[in-house]
């Protein structure tokens, strides 16, 4: 395969910006595509060329495989990077790319098929001597109850099409299964264009720890250490870190070797993640995420390896850029996902328009962001807006830097998950590095503080005074109360 020279980025938001940056570092021409709502987004402005897609709905835009391949061909792109989500793990799309003479940046379709067939992936892991949890192949609604009974409750329903928390439902009792199956299928269809789901045994308490792997077309496989991803809500990761705090060095070593064994058993190629559930000293293979992951930056920081650049190099036919013995993770990196959700209101998606954004910077801070002032957040897409990655020689330094960075991060116009992160970074369990997948439940609807009440009153009074003293023209967002107050003022 020849090296990539022009790359079509079939994604949006922060990951599209990330891929544009990798292209610039490598001298590759980045080409963007955009749904109407993303016109003017940073990934569009950063690309050499950008192509409009016909609609905002994913099936018209970033899930529209034939259209994207056609655009790549017309634009003279020699490769397509799917990012994560959307078409990233779609074997049919990967195969269609290869058939059209466009390199798919990711594993070949046959490998995606094997990883997507969760039962096959589990069997491959088991044959490689890696412990697995009981689970099923893609199930029909009719078989679900019987198969769930066979593996034992609680079970997790997961989407075959991909991750990101979409389509994942935890079911503790048989009577809850049919409703959860319906929800899961609907979410999976909307997010990945694939309604298939499968079941997996769930254990509590547990930690979610995953191992990053890189494999080239010649069959060399290395691992780049682990990430701890146990701060989750509705199976959506919120905070990830590398290395996993408190992980026994022998267990870390064993899991690294297990990840390589699974990758070899699947004939894996390109970047991927092997997910494990860890409970005490035991670990179980869950699945392979056959894509670049949202949380890849924490691994990049502690290993010094640019994973997106490695993906592009491997897709261009190059051997692995590093050897296993060169991977010596050092320091600590933590990532907070900033999403357009209201943590004080059950993490409801926040839809609307930003009118101001100030992103943090400074020592030890990396911001991967697709945010822009004037951006509209629509119901069509994942709420992830940006990621703040803080790093330092120790975990304590990284946490302090993250607190500083999040206090500098201003997003005006919509709710974001930043308040949740500020809370998490103060929790003794998180600070001590002792937390499991239930950690985020401690948030509830957010903390109270009498000190904050007093400051809130002062701020609200000063704000109200200012709004009366400095009249502004009513806008769409103006509260009727303020308009009424202004009228009363006018009467005096």
């Amino acid at each position, binding site marked *: 395969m020849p090296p990539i020279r022009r790359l079509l980025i079939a994604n949006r938001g922060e990951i599209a910006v990330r891929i544009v940056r990798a292209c610039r570092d490598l001298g590759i021409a980045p080409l963007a595509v955009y749904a109407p709502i993303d016109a003017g987004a940073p990934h569009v402005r950063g690309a050499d060329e950008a192509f409009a897609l016909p609609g905002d709905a994913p099936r018209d835009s970033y899930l529209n495989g034939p259209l994207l391949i056609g655009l790549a061909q017309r634009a003279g792109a020699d490769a397509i990077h799917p990012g994560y989500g959307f078409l990233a793990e779609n074997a049919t799309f990967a195969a269609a790319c290869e058939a059209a003479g466009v390199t798919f940046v990711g594993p070949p379709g046959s490998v995606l098929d094997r990883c997507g067939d969760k039962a096959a992936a589990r069997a491959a892991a088991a044959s490689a001597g890696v412990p697995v949890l009981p689970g099923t192949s893609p199930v029909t609604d009719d078989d679900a109850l019987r198969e769930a009974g066979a593996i034992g409750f609680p079970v997790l329903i997961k989407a075959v099409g991909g991750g990101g928390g979409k389509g994942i439902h935890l079911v503790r009792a048989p009577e809850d299964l049919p409703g959860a199956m319906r929800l899961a299928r609907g979410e999976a269809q909307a997010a990945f264009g694939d309604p298939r789901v499968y079941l997996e045994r769930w254990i509590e308490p547990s930690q979610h720890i995953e191992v990053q792997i890189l494999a080239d077309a010649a069959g060399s496989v290395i691992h780049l250490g682990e990430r701890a991803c146990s701060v989750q809500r509705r199976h959506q990761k919120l905070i990830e870190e590398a290395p996993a705090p408190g992980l026994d060095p022998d267990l870390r070593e064993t899991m690294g070797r297990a990840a390589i064994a699974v990758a070899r058993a699947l004939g894996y190629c390109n970047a991927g993640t092997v997910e494990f559930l860890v409970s005490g000293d035991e670990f179980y293979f869950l699945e392979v995420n056959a894509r670049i992951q949202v949380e890849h930056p924490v691994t990049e920081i502690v290993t010094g390896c640019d994973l997106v650049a490695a993906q592009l190099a491997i897709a261009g036919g190059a051997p692995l850029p590093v050897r296993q013995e060169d991977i010596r993770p050092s320091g600590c990196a933590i990532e907070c996902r900033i999403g357009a959700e209201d943590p*004080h209101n059950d993490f409801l998606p926040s839809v609307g328009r*930003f*009118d*101001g*954004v*100030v992103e943090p910077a400074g020592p030890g801070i990396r911001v991967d962001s697709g945010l822009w*002032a004037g951006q509209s957040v629509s119901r069509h897409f994942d709420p992830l807006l940006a990621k703040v990655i803080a790093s330092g020689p120790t975990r304590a330094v990284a946490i302090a830097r993250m607190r500083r960075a999040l*206090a500098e991060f*201003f*997003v*005006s*116009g919509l709710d974001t998950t930043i*308040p*949740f992160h*500020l*809370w998490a970074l*103060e929790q003794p369990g998180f600070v001590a590095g002792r937390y499991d997948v239930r950690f985020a439940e401690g948030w509830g609807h*957010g*903390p*109270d*503080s009498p000190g*904050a*009440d007093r*400051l*809130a*009153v*002062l*701020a*609200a*009074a*000063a*704000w*109200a*005074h*200012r709004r*009366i*003293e400095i009249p502004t023209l009513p806008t769409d*967002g103006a*509260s*009727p*109360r*303020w308009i009424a*107050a202004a009228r*009363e*003022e006018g*009467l*005096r």
Partner: protein
Amino acid sequence: MIFDITVRGQQRRVEVDRRGGDLLVRMEGAAEVVRLEPAAGSEWWRLEVGGRAIPVRLHARDGEVLATLGAVRVMVGVRRSLPIRSRRFPAAEGDGRVEVRAPMPGLVTATPLAHGEAVERGGTVAIVEAMKMQMEVPTPAAGRIEEVRVQPGQEVAGGQVLVVVRASSAEDPGKANPEGSEKAHP
């Protein structure tokens, strides 16, 4: 400017006045110098108070103001307390007796007028101190001092009656409007 501000069901009377580039905010017997500067977009502000600068997001939702400080969100009800009654019924007169109340909790430092003394509308009937800020408490009606219920050195609660004035009917347009009692316009 006076606001009635409600947080978690507790209502506070908050008075905000300009002091140069700053605001003087008086509530619950305390006065604080506050500055609020725009930080980002329409919602993010920098609240300077007590030698600290605190980022705060303020946005309106369903008629309330939501204040987000760090991880904490506080729902704040803000209502302008407009002294319209003093325009329409300047004497705020009911049965001829006008109760002059403490605008906030504090320490009475002086009651300049004694029983029987005449007072003009707007004349000072008491001085109340809170957080080293002294405030003159004016009478809304002209007349004679009928009762002085507090003495210097006494702690008073917000809304406590300090002085009662017997309004003089001659210059009391409120007389012409017997409905214009203070009770009708609390």
